[in-house]
């Protein structure tokens, strides 16, 4: 699903965010991406989402070499990736329903199908009763769940999460992680960037550890 081959990313000014990163995440796999802040976690996610382009090496997502994806094709690649952000990135002037519906609207689905799928996604994250509310009236955990519903509503084969529990207390974090696990159980590939080691210990999965742009660990978390 995700294959990095000797990928480097350097920014103008000589800063190397990633250096020779190699890994493969199989379809249906779930993994954590860890490392101190500035280790390159966000950069790696940005390369997958085509927010940035690799300076060297090859990134293949879903069988597609991202170096060959032109500007105009980027939106179509992104539609196959569900993205979840630490700051939720919800539209505060739209209702929960409209936020979750946005990917389906973009993809051009009909209104009945949108209604059905949005309600299914909100049901999955336990927010079915709140579809008419505005995100600003919800708690942090609820807002994050709206973000997750939006990421999965289009049934993408790949979920990327950037510090999804960054602002949440442990109890809420566990709930959110459980959600990711549920999606993984039905075959979705999940990659979660986090430095919440306690949570990783609680729900052990494969861990990719970055340090100063290099992949220094790949496997179960060393206790």
């Amino acid at each position, binding site marked *: 699903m995700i294959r990095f081959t000797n990928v480097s990313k350097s920014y103008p000014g000589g800063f190397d965010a990633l250096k020779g990163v190699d890994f493969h995440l199989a379809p*249906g796999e779930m993994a954590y991406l860890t490392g101190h802040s500035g280790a390159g976690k966000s950069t790696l996610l940005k390369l997958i*989402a085509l*927010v940035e382009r690799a300076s060297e090496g090859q990134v293949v997502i*879903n069988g*597609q070499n991202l170096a060959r994806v032109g500007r*105009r*094709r980027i*939106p*179509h*690649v*992104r*539609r*196959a990736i569900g*993205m979840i952000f630490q700051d939720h*990135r*919800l*539209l505060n002037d739209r209702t929960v329903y409209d936020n979750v519906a*946005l*990917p389906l*609207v*973009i*993809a*051009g*689905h*009909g*209104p009945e199908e949108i209604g059905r799928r949005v309600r299914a996604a909100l049901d999955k994250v336990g927010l079915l009763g709140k579809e008419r509310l505005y995100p600003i009236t919800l708690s942090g955990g609820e807002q994050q769940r709206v973000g997750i519903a*939006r*990421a999965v509503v*289009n*049934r*993408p*084969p790949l979920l990327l999460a950037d510090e999804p529990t960054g602002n949440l207390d442990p109890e809420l974090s566990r709930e959110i992680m459980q959600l990711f696990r549920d999606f*993984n*159980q*039905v*075959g*979705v590939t999940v990659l979660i960037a986090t430095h919440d080691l306690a949570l990783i210990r609680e729900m052990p999965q494969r861990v990719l550890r970055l340090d100063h742009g290099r992949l220094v660990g790949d496997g179960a978390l060393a206790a």
Partner: protein
Amino acid sequence: MKRTPERRKQPRPATAENVRTRRRGPLAAVENHLLRHLQTLFYTLGQLARRPVSSLLTCAVIGIALALPAGLHLLLGNAQSVARGWDGTTQISLFLHQQVAESDGQALAAKLEREAAVAVASYISREAALAEFRELSGFGEALTALEENPLPAVVVVRPDARTVGGPESLESLRERLAALPEVEAAQLDMQWVKRLYALMDIGRRGIWFLGGVLGLAVLLVVGNTIRLAIQNRRDEIVITKLIGGTDAFIRRPFLYTGFWYGLIGGFIALALVAAGFWLLQAPVRQLAALYGGGFTLEGLDAVATLLLLGGGTALGLGGSWVAVGRHLREIEPR
């Protein structure tokens, strides 16, 4: 046997291809597309209605900018129809050779009157001309001292305003009549007609120039308004791009907003022109009555109305297109 996650039913993966083709048939796709456009159209109108004052201000600026050239165009059109009326009073005097007999002169007048370009042709004999001259000039005494009548016979031709209009066609008619064998000279006093038409030509060019400049102003006003709207919705644009919104999808609401600005501005311009027309109508009728004419102001016709609304809409769309093209690419997720 333990159920492994891999054994469970896998959701249909949403690859780029089948996300686009998952709708039920091409007809449903077209239907959805049209529905989406219609929704965006009314959504953007709703957005404008949410900020009625600022929206109306923008529309009013556009309306005024469009009303100015439209109103001047209307005035010029009316001036032209007045001028056409005056063309009818233009005369061409054909001075006949001395040796042309009176009967031949009258036959010439009768022949000319049958031409399409001529409304009236009347023969004035040498004696009649002398009598008229004596009466009007005040040189009566001096004229009696002359042994011979110095005046030639004249055929006065009034061109038909329906077939002859404008200085060029009058001039060519004059040349044609001057070439007749009976005619010694043909005189058309049309300096004032030429001047009037030259003035109107200047006016027309001025209006085109003004219209062009004000059209540019409309483009800039709409462009700037849309640019601000784009900046205000920067976060929304970034988020939409991140979850796979195409440029066309993001562009659409801004284009429709420009469309509404232009269309509403066009209606405001129409209302302004109508108001000006209504204000001028009574005094113009009075003035026309003083001149003894039945002239009435003509309003904008259907074509001009459509042109004004269509032009406004096109400028609104164009302005937002330029702004969107320039600024949407700058906003990318980071």
